[in-house]
């Protein structure tokens, strides 16, 4: 529990016990005097906003017993009601935050008793097998009113929140409560509201999941399990009765509960939406503030968004070189973040606002008012604070509007709250929470009164944003001090010019709205009164509707340096007089034309005739090769390359976490690479499923996927999987030797076979037997292993030494399938014959070695020896660096062992295409294949070759000349943004310190860290929740 909140609560209790008569509640006895103060109130002369778009002027709001009784358009107050004059005030429905952790204690991270990794959680109360899943938690049972915490919300005009502990993946069912200072029994508006969730495993110490893709896989398995549990509850499983599982039971009706799911960025929003769509779970998202980056894709989810207003602090670009540390993407976000709500609104999306994410709640109105000029209407903004969150929090039948029968929850503001209005009072369940007295006199104005016989005193008093005054008597300015503006009086002390000691005490006292008495106590202590006349302050800065701000920044895809304004168009083009490296039996063709039509190679030959008007590229002196294909890449991945927690994680999918914003996509295009297999890392024997992408820079993650590629999966052998170099804490996971690597794989495949048998047996049951028998629980992990056994999913196995290569081939043969590709395979040359016989291909490094013991026998002639012995051989990168220059990596086989140049080129084009089973589409220059190609200014394997243009499916994604311009544009745009920032006053640069995306690491095969653990540390540091 938050200690400040608990002290507040204790104080509240003491006050209640000592001094207050108690309000009778329905089940507790009153000890002492009963409080029966009536709660029948009428607010007269008010502007009443009943709901977004419906406002009545000069009307009366009547409330009684905690509910709205009437809105009287004739401004008549009922007999017997306490009347409050609300002249000059506007009344809005109370605001609702649909995403909060109010009144719920924070998660306590279990103490680290030792550093041994925890693979299985403690089981109690029918909990889930993973500590990040507490779907069964019903947060009303933990809810307690916390007046101090409530104040932060109430002061911004909020009257109710939907709340739960924001910890873990399935976080439990939230409760929607009033922020009123009443007991929980009275403030709970909806006990069982939405299920909260996130991808972050939170306080769980369990190893799994350690990555974003692991979290996604866990959600997929859990929702599948819930579906299974619905059918299986109470039945007999194959070896025992179906267990009681509270978490799954709680998720059985998740399609009716709905979820509120928090995401870190727009990419994860899209990921989550795809995931939950598959299970028909209705979800609303707690947005990141980056939705404008890809609003079309976000809009296509049709989901409701809960939008934070945590606009980031301006980055620090002062000084000589600090701007170097601030990239263009950051500067763009600084400029555009305040436009995000308007962009969402104008996309027609349903959205609500939340205080979540704000480092200081009092920034809320400041930020909302900053957001509005970008095109957010008052009606939209009000809906985002009332009717929409009411619906998201499941209380739209009782809150969010000021109509009869709804809760008497409302906000009273002087003036329009979306302009300059100020909140005076917030009413919760018919009880007032005073922020500022509604009776307070507005003292601002120009005052005049006579001074002596023939002189005049003049006073200018401002009250907002801060109180200031200036006093002039007979044209001379007096020094003033100790100004205090209170509800019913304003006082100060004044000194005549050049006077140090003789102090005058002055006070303004209101007689009526426009007439004031000035009280003076002269230096001798004599008190006098004069009439002061007041004139309103001239509007020095005439109030003008702020015009729509203009942007210096561009918006590109991805929204960072070198992003594209839109996807490049598909072009029909003829390339003339090129030296064409076909990567087919045709070899290298000199002075040849290639015609690209509708994204494919349509003709190849001398002096081709093409339709008139076809765009031509004169490629005389240039070399044209197929786009380079990388069998082993780890770029373009978000949230961890390894789900390295458990030994077998075949259920996780790189395809779930493709990161289309990674600049290495662009760098690789600039090196001629067009296709890459994004592989899971090598931290466990059976890793995750791979994803083949085309490097369509500017596209979304889904658009990058190369759908012709069949499923593939990463296996790994040797030092990494037996945790040889992980440190002394990592010595408990099975396996720790190459012996165990074989057996854990064997055990996995055996389980998959038995799982398949159970499915078959279940299918064969009679319908009567099925009524008693639970169906086999669909197991995503074993399903993937079955796909391998059935040769529907292909293995790419990280491997180095001869023995482990033989082991995996023998194991596969025993189970009746083939290992597709050994990757790294630095000792492939020792067992090339066996590989060729088995039918395994090899994808190797050109020359890496000596970085660990198992690569001490690596030789740069490996590719030649494998190729000579009949192994289909490719060169891969496993590196964001080498992926940019695979051409010269392939050339090393020419250097070290005399491979023919055309064969070397094949090692980075058609050979990897075959290994990925995409050679029907890509990998060579052949009629009918995808027009993925590179134009080089030099022999393509030479050190001196520079990619000039890189094309994918007839679209030009890289052009060196355009890149040169773009480099200048990036510099110019950055400079313009820096200029704008430097011209921004310091106070307007304030904002959220952690309002920017965190850079993704450069993932390597062996990068194994718990992204959630790291995120927790980062958030703690940044003071976030």
């Amino acid at each position: 529990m938050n200690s400040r909140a608990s002290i507040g609560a204790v104080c509240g209790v003491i006050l209640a016990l000592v001094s207050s008569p108690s309000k009778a509640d329905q089940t507790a006895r009153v000890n002492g005097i009963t409080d029966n103060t009536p709660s029948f109130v009428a607010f007269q002369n008010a502007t009443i906003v009943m709901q977004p778009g419906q406002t009545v002027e000069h009307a009366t709001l009547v409330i009684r017993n905690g509910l709205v009784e009437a809105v009287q358009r004739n401004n008549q107050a009922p007999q017997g009601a306490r009347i409050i004059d609300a002249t000059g005030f506007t009344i809005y429905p109370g605001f609702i935050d649909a995403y909060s952790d109010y009144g719920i204690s924070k998660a306590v991270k279990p103490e680290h008793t030792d550093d041994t990794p925890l693979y299985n959680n403690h089981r109690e109360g029918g909990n889930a097998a993973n500590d990040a899943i507490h779907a069964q938690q019903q947060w009303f049972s933990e809810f307690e009113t916390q007046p101090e915490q409530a104040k932060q919300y109430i002061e911004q005009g909020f009257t109710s929140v939907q709340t739960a502990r924001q910890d873990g993946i399935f976080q439990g069912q939230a409760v929607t409560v009033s922020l009123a200072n009443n007991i929980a029994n009275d403030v709970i508006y909806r006990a069982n509201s939405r299920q909260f969730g996130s991808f972050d495993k939170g306080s769980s110490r369990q190893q799994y999941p350690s990555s974003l893709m692991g979290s996604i896989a866990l959600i997929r398995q859990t929702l599948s399990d819930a579906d299974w549990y619905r059918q299986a509850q109470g039945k007999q499983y194959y070896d025992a009765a179906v267990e009681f599982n509270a978490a799954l039971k709680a998720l059985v009706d998740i399609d009716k509960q709905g979820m509120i799911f928090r995401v870190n960025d727009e990419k994860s929003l899209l990921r989550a939406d795809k995931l939950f769509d598959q299970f028909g779970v209705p979800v609303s998202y707690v947005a990141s503030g980056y939705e404008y980056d890809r609003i079309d894709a976000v809009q296509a989810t049709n989901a409701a968004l809960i939008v934070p207003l945590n606009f980031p602090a301006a980055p620090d670009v002062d000084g000589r070189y600090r701007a170097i540390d601030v990239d263009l993407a950051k500067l763009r976000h600084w400029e555009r973040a305040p436009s995000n709500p308007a962009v969402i609104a104008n996309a027609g999306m349903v959205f609500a606002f939340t205080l979540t994410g704000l480092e200081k709640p009092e920034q809320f109105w400041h930020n909302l008012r900053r957001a509005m000029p970008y095109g957010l209407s008052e009606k939209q903004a009000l809906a985002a604070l009332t009717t929409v969150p009411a619906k998201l929090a499941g209380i739209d039948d009782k809150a969010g509007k000021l109509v009869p029968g709804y809760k008497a929850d409302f906000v009273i503001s002087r003036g329009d709250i979306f302009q300059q209005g100020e909140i005076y009072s917030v009413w919760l369940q018919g009880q007032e929470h005073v922020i500022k007295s509604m009776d307070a006199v507005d003292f601002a104005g120009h005052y005049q009164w006579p001074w002596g016989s023939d002189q005049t005193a003049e006073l200018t008093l401002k009250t907002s944003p801060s109180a200031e005054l200036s006093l002039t008597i007979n044209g001379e300015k007096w020094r003033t001090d100790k100004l205090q503006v209170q509800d019913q009086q304003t006082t100060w002390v004044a000194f005549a010019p050049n006077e140090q000691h003789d102090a005058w005490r002055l006070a303004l006292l209101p007689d009526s709205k426009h007439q004031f008495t000035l009280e003076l106590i002269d230096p001798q202590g004599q008190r006098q009164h004069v009439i002061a006349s007041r004139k309103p302050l001239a509007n020095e800065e005439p109030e003008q509707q702020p015009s729509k701000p203009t942007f210096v920044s561009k918006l590109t895809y991805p929204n960072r340096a070198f992003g594209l304004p839109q996807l490049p168009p598909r072009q029909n083009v003829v390339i003339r007089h090129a030296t064409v490296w076909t990567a087919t039996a045709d070899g290298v063709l000199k002075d040849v034309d290639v015609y690209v039509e509708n994204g494919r190679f349509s003709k190849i030959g001398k002096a081709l005739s093409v339709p008139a008007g076809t765009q031509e590229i004169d490629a005389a002196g240039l070399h044209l090769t197929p786009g380079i294909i990388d069998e082993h890449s780890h770029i373009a991945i978000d949230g961890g390359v390894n789900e390295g927690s458990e030994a077998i994680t075949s259920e996780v999918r790189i395809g779930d976490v493709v990161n289309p914003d990674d600049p290495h996509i662009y760098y690789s295009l600039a090196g001629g690479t067009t296709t890459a297999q994004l592989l899971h890392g090598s931290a466990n024997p059976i890793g995750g499923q791979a994803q083949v992408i085309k490097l369509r820079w500017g596209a979304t993650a889904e658009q990058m996927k190369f759908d012709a590629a069949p499923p593939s999966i990463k296996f790994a052998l040797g030092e990494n999987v037996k945790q040889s170099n992980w440190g002394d804490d990592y010595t408990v996971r099975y396996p720790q030797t190459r012996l165990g690597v074989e057996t854990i794989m064997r055990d996995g495949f055996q389980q998959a076979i038995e799982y398949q048998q159970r499915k078959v047996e279940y299918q064969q049951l009679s319908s009567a037997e099925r009524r008693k028998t639970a169906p086999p629980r669909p197991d995503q992990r074993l399903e993937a292993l079955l796909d391998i056994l059935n040769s529907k999913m292909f293995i790419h196995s990280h491997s180095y030494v001869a023995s482990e290569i033989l082991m995996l081939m023998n194991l596969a043969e025993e189970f009746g399938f083939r290992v597709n590709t050994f990757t790294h395979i630095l000792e492939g040359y020792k067992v090339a014959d066996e590989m060729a016989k088995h039918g395994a291909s090899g994808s190797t490094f050109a020359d890496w070695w000596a970085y660990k013991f198992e690569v001490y026998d690596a030789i740069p002639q490996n590719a030649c020896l494998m190729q000579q012995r009949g192994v289909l051989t490719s060169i891969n990168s496993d590196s964001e660096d080498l992926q940019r220059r695979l051409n010269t990596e392939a050339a090393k086989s020419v250097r070290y062992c005399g491979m023919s140049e055309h064969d070397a080129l094949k090692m980075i084009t058609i050979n990897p295409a075959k290994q990925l089973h995409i050679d029907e589409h890509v990998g060579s220059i052949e009629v009918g294949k995808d027009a993925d190609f590179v134009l080089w200014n030099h022999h393509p394997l030479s050190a001196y070759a520079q990619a000039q243009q890189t094309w994918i499916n007839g679209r030009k994604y890289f052009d060196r000349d355009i890149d040169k311009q773009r480099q200048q544009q990036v510099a110019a745009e950055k400079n313009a943004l820096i200029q704008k920032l430097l011209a921004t006053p310091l106070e307007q640069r304030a904002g959220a310190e952690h309002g920017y995306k965190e850079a993704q690491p450069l993932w390597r095969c062996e990068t194994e860290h718990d992204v959630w653990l790291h995120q927790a540390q980062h958030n703690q540091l940044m003071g976030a929740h």
Partner: protein
Amino acid sequence: MKSWKHLFSGLVLALAASTASAHDQVPGEKQQHPILLKGGTLHTVTQGVMVNTDLLFSGGEIIAMGNQLTLPDNTEVIDIQGQHVYPGLIAMDTTLGLNEIEAVRATRDSEEVGAIHPEVTAHVAFNADSEVIPTVRYNGVAYAQVVPQGQLVMGASSLMQLDGWNADDAIVRAKTGMHVQWPRTYVVDAWWEQRTPEQQREANAKALDTLKQVFVDAKAYYDAKQADQLNAVDVRWEAMLGLFDGSLPLYVHANDVRQLEQALDIAKEYGFQLVLVGAADAWRIKERLAKSQTPVIFEGLFGLPNHNDDGYDQAYRSAGELAAAGVNLALAYPGYWDTRNLAFGVGNAIAYGLNPDKALAMVTLKPAKLLGVGAQLGSLTVGKKASLIVSKGDIFDPLGQDLSAMFINGRKVTLQSRQTELYHKYQKRPE
């Protein structure tokens, strides 16, 4: 008279045959008789490219270059018609001989504990029998500057020739410089960085203060020693004396422009002979560097953009841009096993604008001068050591590079390695 012993150009095969049975490679024998490399293209560095020119060396030194040379008795003539001769490459900033297998702690001797260890010197732990060394020679590297690693003051480097029987035999020049890893100046927003920008800036400033204090203390020691006022020897400051009398250059390993500027300022304050190593951001201050003629060893030959907003090719073209601006430039490919890619890295710099005629000096004569051996090494010059390589094609291009011979001080050096042996072994495996 003249005794012609005509060898065919298949020198590699001859050498291979002589060493194929050995597990390790035997260092070359001291030059026994004069050798003439006949008809090659000489990339002299100092006198341009001399096509179809003979080169004669004897007693470990180049004694003549030209045609129709008078040959001493007993001269071995090697016909290298169509091949290219270069000075043996000098690899700066390596851990060759200190590290064998990166992941195996027992085989790493490059980094001493603590942040400040100027007293350590690289050649002390140099393993002349490292299996890595012959693989690097294979690509034309004949000499390496071996550098202790560390977080701040790393220690002294030494220049080694890469064909020695042991560390003492391999050493060319001990203590070629004092190496400092310059404290971080920038702030990052990366997964491994758990500190706020403010905390990072504080830590950066503190690390710089620590380094400045090292210079203050070392200078105090130097001054006291000059005046014969020392209480006792301090091995740390003893190792740094040369910085203050100008006999020991200060190598600053740094990439960010702020680090480079701080290093320039502090070196100026103390009058250090500064060498900047790494220097990814050097292009940002190339005019200043050109003006000061501070030696820069640029290492990002295949570098990724150092900052998100830099062009994809910024690192590729930096060497060319620095050279064109007149910066006193050398090139390096730091590391140990991967240092064999040094020549290819130079090729990439040429592809992106480095003048090919100037490139060779940046991995030969420039490093030799920085290491204080410019009079003996780094070019094909009469009177200099016969440390040279013969390649069938352009050494900077993987399509051309194909060494047929390497000589260090006139000694024939084998180009075989553990890797070629494994290659030959498995070539022999019956199908």
